[in-house]
């Protein structure tokens, strides 16, 4: 995760603003993300964290500001200046998006194996046998029972669906993965295993990651850096342990002191 980085940032967000009419989704957000780095974004519901994630991940064009990504060929490029086709290609190859609700990230009416294989075909893999091999390798990596490979995801539990979503996204070896509340609908026991799985994979593959969550425990364990949002603005950002152990802003202090002890 922490190889020496002489290279520039993988993602650079500047002055990002999204307005819904008079309502502010997020306003004037700046950050850079380096290869292999995990950034957590926390804040209460309505603080703008999901809006920020959607804008930064190419799902929604912001009202103002830029999102630049270090493309393999042309270096840093404004993703909203790319053509639709180029942006789709980027999202299929270099990016992964793991949604809170697995139904938004999976195709529920095709098998688990096909959900994973489909992403491979999208990047040009055509050989059926090798697609099946790579797919099953990934299902094993996320600890899925291979006996369920030909079953439909809607027959899976929430935790299994989430693991399938992870396999589907990571199979193309993206350099950046966005996660929106990846563990929030799951049992605590399933959460811990999923967190460990995500952490291991992110590190093995050197993937940079942006995780939106309201769970400070999740960011403590997974993220290197933390951004705290309130009313659409970033009120504080820094190293995760520094922000949680020595919060500077009144709102972060309130957030940290409100954690219930177990």
């Amino acid at each position, binding site marked *: 995760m922490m190889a020496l980085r002489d290279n520039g940032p993988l993602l650079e967000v500047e002055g990002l603003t999204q307005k819904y009419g008079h309502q502010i989704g997020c306003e004037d957000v700046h950050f850079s993300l380096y290869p292999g*780095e995990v950034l957590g974004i926390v804040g209460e519901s309505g603080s703008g964290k999901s809006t920020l994630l959607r804008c930064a991940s190419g799902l929604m064009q912001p009202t103002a500001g830029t999102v630049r990504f270090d493309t393999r060929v042309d270096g840093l490029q404004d993703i909203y200046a790319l053509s639709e086709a180029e942006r789709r290609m980027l999202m299929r190859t270099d990016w992964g998006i793991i949604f809170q609700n697995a139904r938004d990230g999976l195709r529920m009416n095709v098998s688990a194996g096909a959900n994973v294989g489909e992403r491979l075909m999208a990047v040009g893999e055509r050989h059926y046998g090798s697609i099946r091999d790579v797919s099953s390798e990934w299902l094993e990596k996320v600890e899925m029972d291979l006996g369920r490979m030909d079953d439909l995801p809607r027959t899976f539990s929430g935790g299994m669906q989430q693991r399938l979503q992870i396999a589907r996204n990571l199979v193309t070896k993206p350099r950046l993965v966005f996660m929106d509340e990846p563990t929030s609908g799951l049992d605590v026991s399933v959460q811990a295993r999923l967190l460990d799985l995500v952490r291991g994979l992110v590190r093995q593959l050197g993937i940079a990651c942006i995780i939106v969550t309201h769970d400070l425990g999740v960011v*403590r364990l997974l993220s290197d850096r933390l951004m705290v949002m309130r009313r659409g603005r970033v009120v504080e950002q*820094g*190293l995760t342990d*520094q922000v949680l*152990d*020595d919060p500077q802003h009144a709102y972060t202090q*309130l957030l940290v002191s409100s954690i219930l002890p177990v």
Partner: protein
Amino acid sequence: MTMTDNNQNHGQDMIRVESLMKSFTLHNQGGVTLPVLEDVSFTVAQGECVILAGQSGAGKSTLLRSLYANYLPQSGQVLIRHDGELVDLVSAAPHVVLDIRARTLGYVSQFLRVIPRVGTIDLVADSLLARGINEVAAREKAATLLSRLRIPESLWSLPPATFSGGEQQRVNIAMTLVQDYPVLLLDEPTASLDVENRQTVVDLINEARQNGSAIVGIFHDQAVREAVGTRTYELQPARSAA
């Protein structure tokens, strides 16, 4: 603030603290400000082990945490020698601090805080794997250290959540000392250990120092201080009240 020097072969400066100030502002308690560190300056060279001393509340833990960038000082510098250059942790970008922590700066906290349900040996090997060391070598090094710290092999595959306080503390120590960090920060690493294990930890600290690590630590046990310390840095409680 006073310093007593017990003569030691001084190597290169690894830590330089300059005019460090740290206070805490409690916004949700009427904005009261608590000054803790005022104008703290000192240096630590390779092969030194500096003991932080001072009464309770003098700011020993605050200073140690500031040296790890876990706390954010208001002013001053914490310079750590990383890849041969002194880098200021207070003003460094987060990804630089993370790189320094991964390869140069190790910290043993008082309490173990780990991802749940991960086996002890995997936790100890974790930081080696993160640096790209192969799994066999990493686990071997972790196993050697766990044996030395008398964690029974039957426990290695289990998560440490159910271990005794002393066992958890030893796992915590192993997680940091499995690396050969050039700079080590130790917050009471021997607090809940029995005599035998305390001696093992003292031996490990002295070995790290003899191998050239620069060490800063808080130790309440007088015998341990004498066994590992080469110098004492005395902190005075901050005077100015807000």
